[in-house]
Structure formats: structure tokens, C-alpha cells
């Protein structure tokens, strides 16, 4: 993951509560199997008047000139100012990917939905929580004269071009991860032994959670093991499929 230290950019206002991830990136674009290619479709049904499909470019679309992100003043904005409960709804990480790819690196709101907030920290999009009254003042400022902000994660401050500096709170673990661009999986695998020890004890306490037909692989030989396991399981599945399907049909009443 890329590290986030400081950022300076223009603020774009999105004056709506409960902006859901369906609005941030609509479902038709989730059919992609990639992590990229979502920026053109950010806030798709607000930015454009026509329904879009995967593969279309903004040039082919009918622009909604009334939508704030299409206004001249906010072209190239990289800080999004939003209202409460930003990112609610679906867990789709595509919402974060779309915001980043469009050019946003910071989102400021009075509150965020849980899953969206967590997803931000997997991708170096910095979500900043500020009090509702301060958010209100920032909206007024953006609408009156425009606003350029400098964000310093280490110092936990945002500073306006006029020199006004505001502190923000952030959990130390998340801050450290973002500042250093740390990879979650690598961090967790450092604790491999701890997980293995827990797992062995868990298996003794709740053996029914471990399915005997699917032995735990040797973690040191995962790649090879996976492939072999894959072939075996596939064979087993094909065999058992029809029989099990019938059996379940009668039982599920």
C-alpha cells in the first residue's frame, strides 16, 4: 500500500447526508474482476444523465452540468467534503477504488459508515472526521470563496490557505499503517505462530468447526498443496453433488 503523509488540494463539496456506496459506484461496474477502471464511473448517476455501462468513456456520456463535481471550480479537486454517514450501504471496496482513481485522496465528513471507513485504510484514502459545526463552516467557505486545504497526517492537522489550522483525531494503529504504507496481511503473518497456537486450541474446544474431509494444509507448502487439493476436491465434489442435492431437498423442510 502507498504511504500517506501530507496532501494539498482543492476541496469539492458534496452537500448530502447518507451518501451510499451504490451512489459512489453503481452496481453495473462491479462486474469487473479488476481493481482499476472505476474512476470514470464515480457518482455515475449524478455526474451523467444517461445510464452507463462498463467500458464507456466520459466523452460518450451526457454530462449533468448541475452536479457539483462537473462545475469548473471543482475540476481537479482532490479533497471531498461530505455530510454524515458517508459511504453507507454495501461493503463494495470498489467505492474507495473509484474515489481514488477519480483523484480524491481525502474525504472529510462528520461521520462515516463502518465498512467504508475500514476499506479506506486498505487503500490510502484518508477519511477525516470533524465535528458537524466545523463541517458546516467548511461548506460555507467552499461555497463563498473556494477552499484549498493542506492535510498533514503525522501532525493530524488540516490547514486552509488562509492559515486556519484544525486538528483531527485518528486511531494510532490506523495512522501508523497509513503513514508507513504498511500491508495488513504481512503485518498479520508476522503473528503466524500466535494464530497457529490459537487455531490448535480452538480445534480442541470446538472440533465441529473443522471439517474432517478438508484437512488443513501445511502452510509451508501452500501453493503446491492448493493445486493438488484443488484437483482432489473437484473430483469429490462432482461425485457428491447430485446425491447431496437430492438429500437436502427432502431435509430442508
Amino acid at each position, binding site marked *: 500500500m502507498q504511504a500517506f503523509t501530507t496532501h494539498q488540494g482543492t476541496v469539492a463539496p458534496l452537500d*448530502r447526508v*447518507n451518501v*451510499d456506496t*451504490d*451512489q459512489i459506484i*453503481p*452496481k453495473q461496474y*462491479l*462486474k*469487473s*474482476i*479488476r481493481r482499476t477502471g472505476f474512476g470514470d464511473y464515480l457518482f455515475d*448517476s449524478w455526474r451523467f444523465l444517461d*445510464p452507463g455501462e462498463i467500458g464507456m468513456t466520459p466523452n460518450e456520456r451526457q454530462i449533468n452540468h448541475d452536479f457539483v463535481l462537473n462545475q469548473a471550480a471543482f475540476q481537479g479537486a482532490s479533497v471531498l467534503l461530505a455530510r*454524515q*454517514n458517508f459511504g*453507507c*450501504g454495501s*461493503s*463494495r*471496496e*470498489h467505492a*474507495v477504488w473509484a474515489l481514488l482513481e477519480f483523484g480524491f485522496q481525502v474525504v472529510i465528513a462528520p*461521520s462515516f*459508515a*463502518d*465498512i467504508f471507513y*475500514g476499506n479506506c485504510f*486498505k487503500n490510502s484514502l484518508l477519511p477525516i472526521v470533524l465535528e458537524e459545526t466545523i463541517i458546516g463552516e467548511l461548506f460555507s467557505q467552499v461555497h463563498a470563496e473556494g477552499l484549498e486545504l493542506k492535510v498533514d497526517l503525522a501532525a493530524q492537522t488540516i490547514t486552509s490557505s488562509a492559515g486556519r489550522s484544525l486538528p483531527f483525531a485518528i*486511531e*494510532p*494503529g490506523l495512522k501508523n499503517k497509513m503513514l508507513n504504507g504498511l500491508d*495488513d*496481511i504481512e503485518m*498479520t*503473518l508476522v*503473528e503466524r505462530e*500466535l*494464530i497457529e497456537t*490459537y487455531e490448535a486450541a480452538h480445534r480442541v474446544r*470446538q*472440533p*465441529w468447526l473443522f*471439517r474432517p474431509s*478438508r484437512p*488443513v*494444509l501445511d502452510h509451508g507448502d501452500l501453493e503446491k498443496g*492448493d493445486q493438488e*487439493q*484443488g484437483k*482432489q*476436491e*473437484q473430483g469429490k*465434489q462432482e461425485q457428491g453433488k447430485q446425491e*447431496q*442435492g437430492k438429500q*437436502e*431437498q427432502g431435509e*430442508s*423442510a
Partner: protein
Amino acid sequence: MTGQTLYDKIWDAHLVGERADGNSLIYIDLQLLHEVTSPQAFEGLGLAKRGLWRVDANLATPDHNVPTDRREQGLAGITDSVALEQVITLDKNCTAHGVEQFDILDQRQGIVHVVGPEQGATLPGMTIVCGDSHTSTHGAFAALAQGIGTSEVEHVMATQCLVQNKAKNFAIDVAGKLAPGVYAKDLIMLIIGKLGTAGATGYTIEYRGSAIRELTMEGRMTVCNMSIEAGARAGLVAVDATTTDYVKGRPFAPSGDLWAQAQQYWQTLHSDGDASFDTVLNLDAADVIPQVSWGTSPEMVAGIDGVVPDPSNMNDPNQAEAATHALKYMQLEPNQAMTAIQLDRIFIGSCTNARIEDLRAAADVVRGRKVARGIGEALIVPGSGLVKAQAEQEGLALIFVDAGFQWRAAGCSMCLGMNPDQLGPGEHCASTSNRNFEGRQGFGGRTHLVSPAMAAAAAIAGHFVDVREML
């Protein structure tokens, strides 16, 4: 020492370790996978040359973008090439990693949150994750079940763990018993209307009280399913005989000595009498009547006897602004009676309401009646191939087809319109799904969330009606 909540107990039983920065490492017992949020995770795993930590802790099925017609053609029935690639990618990834999958032609295929419980893969006391926010459904089994993003999906694949902070405890206690014609869906919609869509952010909700105890597992799943619509990642219901009776004998459930051992442990899965909750909401089931959503957020709900609210009467300017915007999108007038909302389409399905009990409730209303002329399309999409087969066996499918409904194959379908089942611009739909967001069911589509019985009643009348008058 004060007692523990159900959430505290499951959390402690899965705590691998606590880090210096305050985060915890939580062990995950089951990861459910589907075609939309898993491909990038499998790809990441491959790029880092990592494998699955525990193959047997994963179960997959395609659900989000599978078509609900022409199912017998399998993959060939998917006309959208981008969707097809995604379903094939799931097939390939499951084969390569040895993950058990109920593929498009398997009768056990269906919506992940219907399939897990149906197979007994969802068990009490488990930690369950899925790259889908409605994973909260499985909390009905006293399993700590949460929706996660794709990076977290990859993290669980590679480490069998999740890095998390513990949430706070929220108790929603519902006394009494729901009246006939009032369902679990009405209860949870009323709760979301009271709490707002961020009312339980940062909490795990435990649903308690006699009205919850009286619910079947299907009803409890409906309630837990929509916890996320109140902002909570997870909802829980304590284990009782209803829980264990449902689980017993299912293909993935333990049997013999293991069953006895498991059941003994499961009996401890309830909050202690002296457990304390950070927040408590007390409700009386007698106050719940059939609900209908009028806006573009699940908190925008009203009773069937009510009217569309007037934004000019709202105190909070943000809420008034949101309501004004929603009414414009929905093309509704303030003070319009809920029963005056005319409908174009009906959708009965989704992880919220596509189980056998939901179909029975809808069939009870439909039996011997016809879908109104004004309704362009009325869809019934069972939650799994097995639910479909059972409904056919019970004669429900015939009741629906005779009335003019379309009887489809299992999948998420019009809940989010990733497959060809979508609303047209401006169409009003009575939907048993969970989200009425703008464009969710199709570009420009207007969604009204209701219970299956209310959707069935609306199909017959052509507009919303109080289903209690039709039973």
C-alpha cells in the same frame, strides 16, 4: 464481575491476540465467497504467492449477477460477457484453491446468505465473514457475522483472521408478539426508521425479548439481515431450541457425539442476566404495523396507514434536504397516503426475504387472486435452488404462476439489478429487498421496501394496501 453479553462471549472465544496499537486479531471460522467481491482478493493472493490458510473454512456460490431465467443452460445462459467472465473466474478460483462451490448448475446454488444457513454451514458461535454487507443475516444463529471489503476478504483468505476493534453492545428488546399480518420485515424496518441509517454505527446489535423469541429462524434472519441498514456491522439473536432444531440434520452440521458436544456449548450462547449494554432500545411488538419505505434511504419508512412526510415539517435541515431530494426522485407528494402509491413492478426475493417462509406468506395472500392489470412484471425469485424445489413441492409455485407472477431461478436478482432483472426509469416497485437507494434496482427506478405479504398484496391491488385486510 458483571456478566458478558452474547457478543462479548463470541468475541472472547475468537480473540487471537491484542496488539499494542489497540487493534485485535480475531479468528474467522467461515468465509462465504461469491463472484463479485472475491476475484480481486484471489488475484492479490496469487500475486503475493500466498494460498488459503484453511481451505475447509471457505464456501462459495455465484449469486449477484446470475440470470434468473434460462438456468438450465448454465453459463451459456449468461448473455452479459462481463458478468460471465466474473462467474467463470469464481469457478476457476474455487477449482484452483480447492474451495467447495455450489456452481450455477448445482441445485444448492443460491444467495450466499440463504445457502449458508440452509446447508448448516452457518453454525452458532461461529465468526463468519463475506464480502457482502448483508452477512449480518447469519447473526440469527448467534454467529458473529460481518460484511467486509475485498482487501479484508484477501486478509482472511491468507491469515484466517481479521484485524478489528471491538464494537459496543446495543440491545434491542422487543416485548410482546407481532400481530397477524405483521412480520419480521415490518419490525426491522420500524427499528431502522427509529434509529436512522447510522443509529447503530460502531455497535453490534443483540435482538432480544419475547417477540424475537417467537420468530422462526427465517424471521430472525430477516431482522439480522438489515442490521447494516441501521449502521451495525453485525446483529445477533441468542441460541434457543428454535436455533438448534433448525440446524440439526443439515448437511454441514455436526452429528453424533460432535452434535452433543456442540449443543452443550451452544446453550451458553446468550447474554448473561447481569450483562450490561452500552445502549438499549425497548419496543413493544403491539406498536408494529405493516411498513412501507417512501424515500431513498431505508430509514425513510412509514406505516401503511400513514402518509408521505412533509419535509417542511422536519426540524433537522439536513434531513429536510434529504427528504426533499428523495421525494423529487421518487415523484411523491408530501402528505400523499401510502395506499395511494401506484406500482409498476413487484419483486419478491433477496437475502432479506427469499426463504420458504417468505414465499409461504406471499402465497397465502396471492392464493386464488390475480396480479393487477397495471403491474408490468411481478417476479418471484427464490433464495436458493432448494427453496425453489421445496416451494414447487408445496404447490406455492403454481399459486404464483396462476396469479400471473413469474417464477424464476435463484439469485440476488432485482435486489441490486446486476443481472438482467432491473427496473426501468421512473418505475415504482414493491420490493422485499433491503435497500431503496437511488438507482439500486435499475437506473431511475423507484424502490419501496415491504414484507413479502405486503408485496403480494400490492401486486393484487396495483397499489399499496394493508395486507391485514386481505388475510
